[in-house]
């Protein structure tokens, strides 16, 4: 009789292990600390500017929208949450190898591809719980202050940022299949994320930076876009990010499938 492994239960179990662990606590504290500290900092900046609440609009290239500090705080929340994403997967494969767990895990009736999807799936779920846990209620706090903000625009943007998080997880998963050390995987994963981010933060400084930013998924997940935000644009950007995820995921699976353990 064929054994049916209950993958949703496995993924959920692993997700709980990730969330209720030191790394889960670090991810949560990082988010809370950065949001609180960021909000305090922004609030001070606002107060020190000539017109309260207007400083942020100096950087706003959407003249049809007026941002307030809480809105910016929401953006910061997303950013910090994204930074926490690699925490859930940087040691997925190299950690199991190093701790010599991989032998007993893969002696079960699961394939290596399924093992990879268990790791990726649980990391995505853990990340999503933190991400949408912060962003979902955030809409109701932000919207009264920014009446122009629609649920579609807010959650469309959140969706793109979530996909950026998934991209980060795919890259970190690949790194974890390629290196032996957890620490090295951690450094490379966060380093790559920051490296990708760099041209995106400076994209309006020069045409070269803008061109460089356009080959990163971060560009397609940015909120402060110069283009009109439409449903079609969200879908198009989402597709671009998904396509960018695929080579990293495929390479991670190929690398892991082809090696002796």
């Amino acid at each position, binding site marked *: 009789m064929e054994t*049916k492994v209950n993958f949703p239960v496995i993924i959920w179990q692993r997700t709980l292990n990730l969330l209720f662990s030191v790394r889960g606590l670090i991810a949560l504290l990082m988010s809370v600390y950065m949001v609180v500290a960021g909000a305090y900092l922004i609030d001070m900046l606002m107060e020190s500017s000539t017109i309260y609440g207007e400083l942020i609009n100096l950087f706003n290239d959407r003249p049809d929208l007026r941002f307030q500090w809480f809105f910016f705080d929401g953006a910061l929340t997303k950013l910090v949450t994204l930074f926490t994403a690699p925490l859930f997967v940087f040691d997925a494969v190299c950690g199991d190898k190093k701790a*010599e*767990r991989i*032998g007993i895990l893969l*002696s*079960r009736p*699961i394939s290596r591809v399924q093992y990879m999807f268990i790791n990726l799936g649980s990391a995505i779920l853990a990340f999503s719980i933190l991400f949408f846990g912060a962003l979902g209620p955030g809409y109701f706090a932000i919207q009264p202050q920014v009446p122009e903000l629609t649920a579609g625009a807010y959650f469309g943007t959140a969706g793109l940022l979530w996909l950026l998080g998934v991209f980060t997880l795919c890259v970190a998963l690949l790194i974890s299949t390629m290196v032996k050390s957890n620490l090295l995987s951690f450094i490379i994963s966060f380093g790559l994320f920051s490296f990708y981010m760099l041209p995106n933060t400076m994209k309006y400084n020069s045409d070269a930076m803008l061109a460089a930013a356009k080959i990163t998924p971060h560009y397609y997940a940015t909120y402060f876009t110069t283009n009109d935000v439409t449903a079609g644009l969200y879908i198009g950007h989402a597709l671009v990010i998904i396509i960018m995820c695929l080579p990293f995921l495929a390479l991670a699976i190929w690398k892991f499938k082809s090696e002796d353990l």
Partner: protein
Amino acid sequence: MGAIEIKQLKKDYKDVQALKGLDLVVEEGQVYGFCGPNGAGKSTTLKILVGLVYATGGEASIKGIDVLNNGVEAREHIGYLPESYGMPGGDTVRKFLTYMGILSGMSKEDVAKAIEAISAEINLTDNLDRKIKTLSKGNKQRVGIAQAMIHNPDILLFDEPTTGLDPLGRNEVLDAMKAFAEKGKTVIFSTHILSDVEKICDTVGIIHEGLLIEQGSPEELRQKHGSKDLDEVFLKVASHGN
């Protein structure tokens, strides 16, 4: 049909030929001692059967299922204990075994029942709710055995299961394997402790430099080589192999 059938199995690492065309058959219900010096190819053979290492050539099957091409299905029938392995130290024994059971395709209810049964069998009951990192080496080995047996496999593959254990711990592991075999299951374990083999094995295979160079019951091998114990047989056969 043998529980495990291996034909002309080869494995090349970069500069080393670990298996040079291994032929091996383990019948159902046997306790098979897989002996050989370090680097002979014992662990590589077991890892190929589990799917952790890819063979360079040859065939291997478990209960007639081609391991090399249909590993997932073949692994439904095996429980595996690697030579060295890690377990999540912060988890309780029960939590870890539950996870391994679910990963083997069992329902939570079935895993719970299996944990009670196996832990009673291998004296683990009192430790089920303790964290793994707080257990002694012998008790950790019991957990390792329990995870291999949790889904009631037909075949157990143990890689050096008694290495590093004190005599008491060794005897307990051997008793567990014997009890498993008495239920009609098949056990294949690698070791270089030949007194362990003499205690519980029906058949002994001696592997040397990637080839099976001798096989038979402990008694047959002793008689064939005119030796008083398997250590002597092993030394004669291995030196002849060289």
